């Protein structure tokens, strides 16, 4: 082996080995093996739920609502969720952003046609509502087409969101039962209010 070859062979072998190893690793995604990066909350996101009825609707609404709130606060959905999960007082900006985010979620779901018709929610709402028996029977007797003509889901949800005390809910996030109760009360109240208003309108027109 010549001197020149002896000088060059080992560095060449080292260079080939290092380039080969690093090349294979980079080609297979080396350097990008990092935690999932939060998506842009201002970009439209498709949300689904494994739950049916009001639970499923509420979940989709909350997921879209947090996105909207995060977009308004210029943070990621995940950062806002973690922040809201911490105990402590909420800022007015957070409450307002969440309220506006939820309303924007209702509008978006209405626009993309993913809001269920009101009749789909009425039976579930009636099960949970402590209504006068006569009134409940009267409402249940109304055909779905009439219910859907009388009740607009987006109107119900908007009323429910306006009724919700978001600051109280966020202050007691550990009390899941309490939150469910508040949500049910707000949604049920919104359905009742909307129905009663509509009935009043119909009676008034009659």
């Amino acid at each position, binding site marked *: 082996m010549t001197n020149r070859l*002896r000088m060059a062979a080992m560095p060449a072998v080292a260079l080939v080995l290092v380039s080969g190893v*690093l090349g294979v690793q980079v080609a297979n*995604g080396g350097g990008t093996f990092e935690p*999932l990066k*939060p998506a842009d909350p201002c970009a439209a996101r498709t949300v689904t739920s494994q*739950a049916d009825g009001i639970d499923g609707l509420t979940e989709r609404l909350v997921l879209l609502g947090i996105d909207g709130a995060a977009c308004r606060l210029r943070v990621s959905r995940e950062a806002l969720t973690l922040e809201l999960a911490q105990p402590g007082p909420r800022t007015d900006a957070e409450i307002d952003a969440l309220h506006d985010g939820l309303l924007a979620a209702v509008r978006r779901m209405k626009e993309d046609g993913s809001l269920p018709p009101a009749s789909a929610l009425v039976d579930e709402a009636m099960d949970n509502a402590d209504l006068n028996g006569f009134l409940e029977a009267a409402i249940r007797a109304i055909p779905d087409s009439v219910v859907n003509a009388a009740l607009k889901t987006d109107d119900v949800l908007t009323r429910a969101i306006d009724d919700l005390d978001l600051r109280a809910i966020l202050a007691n996030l550990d009390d899941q039962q309490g939150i469910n109760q508040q949500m049910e009360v707000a949604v049920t109240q919104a359905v009742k209010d909307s129905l009663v208003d509509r009935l009043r309108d119909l009676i008034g027109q009659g």
Partner: protein
Amino acid sequence: MRRAVAPLLAVTVALVLADSAVVTLALPDILRHLDATVGQVAWVLIAFNLVLGLAAVPTAMSFTRAQPRILSALGIAVFAGASAWCALAGSIDVLIAARCIQALGGALALVGCLELLVAEYGERRGVAAWVAAGVLGTATGPVAGGLLTEAISWQAIFVVQVPFAVLAVPAALAVRAAPEEAPDRHRPAVRPNLTLALLSAALTAALFLLVLLLVEGWRRSPATAALTVSVVPIAALAARPLARFLRPPPEVEVAAGCFLIAGGLAGLAIPPSAHLAWTIAPQALVGLGLGLTVDRLTAQALEMRLPRVRHAGWTIGARHVGVVVGLAILTPVFTADLEDAQVPAQEAITSLVLDAPLKPDDKIAIAESLGRELVDQQGQVPDLHGAFAAADIDPEARPAAARLERDLDAQLERAATRAFRDSFLIGAGLALLALLTVVAPGRRRDP
């Protein structure tokens, strides 16, 4: 008995140098058993290397005035006694104190064994045996420590050293070696010792950080981690045949070795996944580099320099101060990076839980359970299994929850891997600095 003398002395050299990193895989067990903090437990590693690094040269000086066999036997006996004390330590302070004594005995034993091996084998073969035993010990330390911790306990690491060391005491006394009375003619070999120090700092990154990543970040058992890092010593064994085949000049061999270590560490910084297979090729590069550099540099630092024992002291000092410097640079970097990794990890976990194909009640139950678990395990890469086991979820949702658990574990692996990246790259930088010390032009001597 006579035939066993030199092998026992070589084993002693390997044991002392293995002790430099032998406890790396046992640190989590020591932390739990002795109820210590992460900072305290790091001193189990740092104290040994610091004392060995600082004591090596003064210890070597004592060998020019006393009988090497007596000092060596004394050093090995102190090393054995301190090893037993380490095994019996009931508190972290006692363990650290015992490790300091162990290092003092180890320093005496190391330089003494060099003199005794030279007396047994002759200059060339004796130095070669001493260097080879040291490289073997350095490379296999973490592997042996991990296997013993997994199979028995962390105390076993120290217990198994005692009989070997006890047998080496009469072996040392059996060697007739006169004190080296050579005048102090040569200055320490600055360049090879500096390269050794920088490489030791870089190799600390390879061994110390990799086992931490495997055990703490990727949640592999100490035995699995030990078997995984065994690639380094195996590859180191392949370095000699490669060097014999290519026959490069010594400087070129060392420079190529430094480059291989830098490349291996860069590879460890960017694995494409948390699969153990992705660590094998980078480790093989590190092992090859280790085999090409450490013994060659040690030989260069000792070659034609008298008194030999003092120059051996300088190389031991350089290596172990290098390890301490490596730990001092890397520990704050990766602990800070691990802390910084918490936010992206938590956000990734939150994202997956929010979008999980589970009913809202199950998501909330898992989120609450995860929150409690993350608070309980603050300061370490969390094990999420307890959270999923404790969560009150619908039995029908268990398969989806199990998938979510796997996805979350994958996110934690990603976060931990990312957190170790900068430290591995700093290690690669140290190896490149070592390469610079080799290729930089030397001072021109006047004719």
